[in-house]
């Protein structure tokens, strides 16, 4: 569980958002049987997000006696059981089993973010509706860091693009309304993409219902840019090359935490080697990490080295300390020094591990091929590289990722090439992958050449490919993918300049999906100030009228490298412009594609 110190240094007061949710959480807990000691049962997917909002001691203060993860059976002596769950039928069925095992207890169900009709029907069908009290807890955006908010809905892109389920869009719209309740009305809303427009429209409808008055709450956010992942499907398929991005690609970051395998945990004489994975928080609270997370990975090694030298120099200072006073100052610095030392050792281990993987030939070849596709080399013919991967039986996910990248970078594949690839896959990996092919085609990741989106035009207009990238002292966001500037972030740049530069305008036209830009019209206040009901812990650090604060909302996921690129934009503006990033979920190539993979049910045993 986490403390919140890393949230202090934020362009907007993110702590207020966290506080807002903590208040709601207390309400939920208190209305579940008052002050009685209770058992809290969490659905596994909620442990992470809830952890970013409330630590264990906080829950304990509010009557949670014991914490359980949802399993097939529940064994607890506590009489009050509170469930916090996602609305899923399988979960509800498990709970129904618990209730039948012991109907004498009191059961409270809290759906996050809300109960669905199908869950209600399941409860009725299972005959336990009378035994439960139902609540909803609208937890949506959780702060992963001081400038990064996420709803952590793992399949947002697939849900919307493939299954036509607009629930994630609805949640996004509602979270945008909530942000405006906490941080004031956002005067300007712009964005790109069909779903982005849908969300913006939903927001303006909801704002009317919320009856927010323009000057009820001081405005903290100047404008919001909503981007639909559908507009830029290329970027999440590229290998991220920032330190944080590579950690996510290779070791996986979960709700701002890295689960570090024991082998990578530094050990010394005084500590025992851990046998299980250690959870390491990855956020701006750790200033060693803060310094290196967004750098191109090539820069991480030298920097860690420099830091290590500095720290040993500072340890050496103790020999120079002569007077008691000097020794005292040294000792007061010691805990900070030790924390820094420990963090350095951890990150040196992680960086070494990543280095091993990235200097591997397989990795380098794929990266080279990836960059060729992005810069438009050989995109129209069947790639020998991809064929080779298939023949060598490389993981299907990798093969498909490359195929999608080629298809997108070429604005679709020639029908012959596409059919050849697909046939190749079916013949090699089996008929059961037919549906995956269909899914990828449906969401537009694989397609035959169309007249619509011309990636090559957009690439030239927005200078997506930058040949000379200075990875040491980057001047452009392209450093995050070593030469490729993420399309999404180029759009953020285009929207941030006003008026939008001409090449940006024409690029926006070349990309499918509506572009919109309007001011948020809310009725002016009629003089009656409504008291904001939120207790805000501490004032925002922002000085009025000095910095511009932009919220960038990614629908369908954002990568850590894109986040790094946006942070870089803020740095470049020299304090004129700050960004907050919100998203439905954090993605990387693997988690972006895997919800689209669906194998057909093929019986293991043949027919007889």
């Amino acid at each position, binding site marked *: 569980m986490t403390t919140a110190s890393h949230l202090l240094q934020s362009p907007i007061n993110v702590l207020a958002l966290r506080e807002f949710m903590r208040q709601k959480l207390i309400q939920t807990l208190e209305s579940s049987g008052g002050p009685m000691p209770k058992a809290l049962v969490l659905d596994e997917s909620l442990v992470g997000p809830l952890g970013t909002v409330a630590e264990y001691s906080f829950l304990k203060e509010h009557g949670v006696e014991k914490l359980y993860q949802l399993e097939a059976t529940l064994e607890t002596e506590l009489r009050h059981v509170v469930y916090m769950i996602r609305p899923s039928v399988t979960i509800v069925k498990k709970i129904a089993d618990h209730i039948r095992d012991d109907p004498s207890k009191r059961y409270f169900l809290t759906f996050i973010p809300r109960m669905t009709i199908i869950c209600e029907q399941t409860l009725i069908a299972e005959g336990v509706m009378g035994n439960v009290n139902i609540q909803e807890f609208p937890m949506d955006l959780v702060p992963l860091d001081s400038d990064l908010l996420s709803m952590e809905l793992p399949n947002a892109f697939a849900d919307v693009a493939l299954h036509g389920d607009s629930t994630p869009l609805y949640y996004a719209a509602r979270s945008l309304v909530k942000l405006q309740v906490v941080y004031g009305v956002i005067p300007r809303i712009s964005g790109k993409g069909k779903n982005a427009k849908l969300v913006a429209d939903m927001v303006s409808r909801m704002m009317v219902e919320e009856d927010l008055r323009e000057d009820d709450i001081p405005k903290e956010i100047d404008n919001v840019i909503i981007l639909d992942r559908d507009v830029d499907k290329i970027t999440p398929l590229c290998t991220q090359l920032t330190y944080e991005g590579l950690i996510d690609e290779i070791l996986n970051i979960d709700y701002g935490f890295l689960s570090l395998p024991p082998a990578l945990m530094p050990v010394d004489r005084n500590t025992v080697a851990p046998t299980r994975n250690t959870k390491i928080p990855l956020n701006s609270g750790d200033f060693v990490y803060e310094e290196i997370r967004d750098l191109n990975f090539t820069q991480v090694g030298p920097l860690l080295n420099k830091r290590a030298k500095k720290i040993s120099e500072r340890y050496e200072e103790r020999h120079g300390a002569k007077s008691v006073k000097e020794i005292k100052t040294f000792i007061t610095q010691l805990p900070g020094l030790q924390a820094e030392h420990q963090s350095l050792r951890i990150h040196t281990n992680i960086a070494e591990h990543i280095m091993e993987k990235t200097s591997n030939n397989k990795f380098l070849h794929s990266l080279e091929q990836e960059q060729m596709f992005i810069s438009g080399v050989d995109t129209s013919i069947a790639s020998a590289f991809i064929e080779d991967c298939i023949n060598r039986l490389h993981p299907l996910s990798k093969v498909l990722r490359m195929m999608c990248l080629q298809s997108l970078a070429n604005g679709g594949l020639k029908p012959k090439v596409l059919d050849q690839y697909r046939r190749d896959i*079916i*013949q*090699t990996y089996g008929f059961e992958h*037919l549906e995956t092919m269909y899914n990828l085609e449906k969401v537009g990741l694989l397609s035959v050449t169309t007249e619509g989106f011309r990636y090559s035009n957009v690439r030239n207009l927005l200078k997506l490919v930058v040949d000379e990238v200075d990875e040491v002292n980057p001047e452009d966001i392209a450093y995050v993918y070593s030469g490729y500037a993420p399309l999404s972030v180029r759009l953020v740049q285009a929207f941030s300049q006003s008026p939008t530069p001409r090449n940006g305008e024409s690029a926006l036209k070349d990309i499918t999906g509506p572009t919109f830009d309007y001011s948020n019209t809310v009725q002016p206040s009629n003089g009656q100030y409504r008291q904001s009901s939120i207790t805000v812990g501490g004032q925002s650090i922002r000085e009025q009228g000095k910095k511009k604060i932009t919220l960038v909302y990614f629908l369908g996921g954002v990568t850590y490298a894109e986040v790094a690129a946006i942070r870089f934009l803020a740095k470049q503006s020299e304090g004129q412009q700050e960004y907050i990033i919100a998203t439905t979920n954090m993605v990387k190539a693997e988690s972006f594609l895997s919800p689209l993979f669906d194998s057909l049910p093929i019986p293991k045993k*043949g027919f007889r």
Partner: protein
Amino acid sequence: FQVRQAKQDTKAVTLEEEHNDLRVAMKTLSGNRITTFYEKTIEEHITLQRLQRKLERASEAEGRPAQFLNLSAVDTVYSLLVAGKAKQAADFKANSKLSDKKFWWLKVRAYAQTQDWEGLERF
């Protein structure tokens, strides 16, 4: 996705019945340029399964029953090669329209698997 429907809902006991279901799914797909690929693939899948069934029968007749059904075309040829049935593998390759290049790859892999270094050298 109708093919999933066909595969999931099917109460087909025999291969023939399943193929009928698949054909029904195929009909709903037909008539569209975009879906020709899916139709063709289903057709090929049906052929493939027939061939695999034949292989299973043959292996049963030999007294060494082996399972081939539901393997991919490549895996089928591979297991034939590893089992040393070069002739059958070549026939199967021709009938399932695997490319020559693929077949070479498979041979190399199979030689390596069975540690038939002489075969690899001759190749």
